[in-house]
């Protein structure tokens, strides 16, 4: 086969063509560079694969949260349980599915029990993010790519916003809206770190 540069992509998918590709690359600098990059990607990609605690942490948190209402159930009568469930369902629908041209409610205050659970969930969330950041952080900080710079900028903004919101929520701890916004920012940070990890693997 008379191997040409245009055959390189096909050769990468077809192992039988690789000897020809390598022979061609010995004479062609462009293809030699391409082959080297592919080899590097193949070498580095498995090392980028990481399992971290959050994969198992969140199912555990969810399970523990699901278990909490079960314990409390025995304290309420069946009628009250139904009433509470209906109220919670309606309110949940209002919060999560509020239609266009409406605003999220901002006049709810938490109970002690709810605040305790929310703070536990927030702490778990923050710990998960810290683990994620510990894995992603060093690579992210040293990466010179424009995409990494954008991620760094976003994470800096998120950290700043989280700090400001935590300060405000500390003064007004039972305000449900502030807690909801804090959860939203934590979620955004977690997603941002996960996206960067995916992009880093892809590139």
């Amino acid at each position, binding site marked *: 086969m008379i191997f*040409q*540069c*245009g055959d390189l992509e096909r050769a990468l998918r077809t192992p039988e063509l690789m000897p020809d590709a390598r022979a061609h690359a010995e004479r062609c600098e*462009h293809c030699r560079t391409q082959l080297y990059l592919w080899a590097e990607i193949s070498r580095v990609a498995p090392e980028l694969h990481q399992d971290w605690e959050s994969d198992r942490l969140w199912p555990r948190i*969810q399970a523990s949260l699901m278990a909490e*209402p079960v314990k409390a159930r025995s304290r309420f009568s069946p009628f*009250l349980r139904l009433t*509470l469930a209906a*109220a*919670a369902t309606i*309110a*949940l629908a209002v*919060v*999560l599915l509020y239609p*266009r*041209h*409406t*605003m*999220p409610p*901002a*006049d*709810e*205050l*938490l*109970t*002690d*029990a*709810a*605040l305790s*659970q*929310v703070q536990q*969930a*927030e702490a778990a*969330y923050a710990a998960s993010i810290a683990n994620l950041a510990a894995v992603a952080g060093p690579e992210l900080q040293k990466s010179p790519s*424009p*995409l990494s710079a*954008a991620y760094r*900028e*976003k994470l800096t*903004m*998120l950290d700043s*916003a989280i700090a400001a*919101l935590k300060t*405000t929520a500390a*003064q*007004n*701890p*039972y*305000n*449900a*809206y*502030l*807690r*909801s*916004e804090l*959860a*939203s920012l*934590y*979620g955004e940070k*977690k997603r941002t770190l996960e996206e960067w990890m995916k992009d880093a693997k892809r590139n």
Partner: protein
Amino acid sequence: MRSVISVLLVAACAAAASARQEVTREFQKTLPLVSGRSLKVEHSQGNITIHTHAKAEVDIHASMKCSADRVEDAREGCDGIKILVEESSSGVWLRTQLPNSDFFHGRRNLSWAINLDIDMPDSAPLEARSHFGSISVTDLHAPAVVATNNGKVLFIGGRGRQRIEDSFGDVEVARNDGDVTIVDSNGRVTASDITGALEIRDNFGEINASGIGKRLDVSAGNGNVNATSVSGSVTISDSFGKVMVRDAKADVTVQNQNGIVEATGVTGTADLRTSFAPVRFSRIGKGVTVHGQNSEVIGDTVGGPATVDTSFGSIDVRGVKGAGRLTNQNGNVRGTDIGGEAYARTSFGGVTLEDVGERITVDSQNGSITVRSSGAAKKCQPISLSTNFGPIKVSIPQGVGYDVTARTTFGRITSQLPVTVNGQVGGESLSGKIGGGGCELRLNNSNGSIDIVN
């Protein structure tokens, strides 16, 4: 996770049994606000909802909810929140003043939420600023500045020049008769049915703009941009996001990086740039210019000329009324149904041109060249094709005479059409006439064959 926390929040709010004590307080005040004077609102940790009416007065309603371990602390907390209203020659200034830090000594776990509901004259200018809360403004027929953070902004049915600022919150503007400027960060922006110009600056958020009466300027980063039905010019800059423009009645300019660009239904010209992502265009009225880097370019139906330049990606352009200039590096070039002159250049890729109306020039390296004529054109169509390391195959319009000059170093030259040869005849060069001659057909190759076909 947010859902989990939301469930907790909502379930907790719904629960009747609670150790905390909760009290509410209402504040109501009505003040005159004559024509020409404005309303200024400063708020924090709660929503602002503003409606308008035809009366020359402002109706202010504040709803406060406070909770604490003891009912007296909760009550004192609500009493400590001040709703300050000042009248001046410029208008009405409303602000909520939260207790200072000294207030919290001895009152453990005090919390509060304050919402403002305001009815104001529809013709009064507005400045509404908040922190950690959403703002909604409906049917205001005067200029406004609306700013918040960590909250949503809704601005509906407005009239006049509007400025909306937000961070970590979504912005939605619908039906404004006048210009709108939106500055957001980390939030989704949706703007629809704006009769004036629309300027949007957003980073890390998706932008959707539709039904814009005048100019649309978008400066985005790290988010997708969708622009639909814009009557004025469109200028969009973005990075790491997909940009889509549909149904634009004037010129479109898109400068993207690392993101897809798509433009469809543009009445004016389209200038589309990106890198490391494809560019697609269709139905461009006046002409298209594409600059890509590591980008595939696919487009069709252009009312004027098409200039496409890319690298490491193929070019496929069809249906160009004007001239087509298609240049590439390390990629194929295909141009079909080009009404004007066609120029193609590439390296390490093939060139295919079909149904070109005027002069054809191809300057290729390390790739094949195929030129097919529809046979419909009966006029002289000069053709100049040059490559190395690839075959040249050309079909010429029927009934048109050509002066043929063909040369190759390692290959053969064949012709399915009769050629009256001038001078020397050799397998690697040919000089002569097809028909009566008169039109240029220049074919240069090295390391490849040359075929002239029907």
